[in-house]
């Protein structure tokens, strides 16, 4: 996205209100809705990816060593991953800031 949400004005709208850049809403930070965040216990994690498949916000990413972690830019803290985790290795930790 060339411009952020705050810099845009009506002059940036294209004819017919066409949005020419696919998926540009991904610059929107949904992470600040969160009050709790998921934390993985890598000791019990079997790296199955169930948390990844059930995340409605596409906020769970695979790390280099095959474990999963939340992308805190997008994670809304719904807790579905902690609820669905087969080995119960995800806990929801309260945000402190």
């Amino acid at each position, binding site marked *: 996205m060339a411009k952020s949400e705050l810099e845009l004005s009506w002059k940036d709208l294209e004819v017919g209100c066409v949005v020419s850049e696919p*998926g540009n809403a991904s610059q929107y930070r*949904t992470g600040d809705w969160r009050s709790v965040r998921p934390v993985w216990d890598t000791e019990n994690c079997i790296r199955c990816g169930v948390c990844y498949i*059930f995340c*409605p916000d596409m906020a769970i990413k695979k790390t280099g060593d095959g474990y999963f972690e939340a992308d805190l830019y997008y994670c809304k803290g*719904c807790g*579905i991953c902690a609820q669905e985790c087969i080995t119960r290795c995800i806990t929801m930790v309260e945000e402190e800031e």
Partner: protein
Amino acid sequence: METFNVYASRLITKKEYFSPGHRACQGCAEALAVRMVAKALGQNVIVSSATGCMEIVSSPLPFTNWRVPWIHVAFENTSAVASGVEAGTKALIRKGKLPDKGTVFLGMGGDGATADIGLQSLSGAFERGHNFLYVCYDNEAYMNTGIQRSSSTPFGAATTTSPAGKLTPGQITWKKNMAEIAVAHNIPYVATSCSSYPFDLIQKVKKAARINGPAYIHVLSVCPTGWRVPPNKAIWIGRLAVETGVFPLYEVENGKYRITVDVPELRPVLDYLKPQGRFRHLTPELVDEIQERVTHEYNKLKAKTAL
């Protein structure tokens, strides 16, 4: 989930055609269903989307969450636009102006856009036999405008326009069976699915995309806000809906019924009603009435699969 190995989620494509950063509520299972459908269809798809939650959360101008061609249309003409896009593309291919890439034409809408307002255009598109796929994300009320009842709201559910009180037990009519209405059009493929069963959903969408002719998929998507459940329970509630027989998952291929997620013994329907705040006012008599209806409908479906 039962029929798949736990590691199956690692086999699914990592590409997201419905980008993150959408404005859906926490724990929205409908956004999850959209994500799965987008993943299953891939890049080569043109989406016509009705007004509703998924339009509001994914396309706040000048932003869009879609990485595929997407058009927003009114409630009434989603299927009309989808069939127009299909017919136009077909004509351009015939004239040699576009290469034939086997594009999938997807119409999508909520339960209000499918079962209430857009039913006529959907019926028309089925009848004309356009080669398109329609996916209905059923969250059982008009959640986008603040939980008003639709014809897809189940009996007994309290919404803002069917409040529970001394005189009425919430919604007083039974849920419209949209999948059966689609079956009655004699279209090649009809299926029901739920976002709590992502592999089932992906398989059905892929199958429907391959079929030549209209296809319809009805996806139950739990709405934590409207159903009054905690956001983290959204997937669990969807699974309960299937296990209690409230929302059986089946597919109808050329008139042949097949139950895809088989539940050997149905759980009591109370297990499904109890966690939801919208059913909290139900008396035991009303629960019995719902149980009777659910068992009856499930047996009717079982009888059809035996044909």
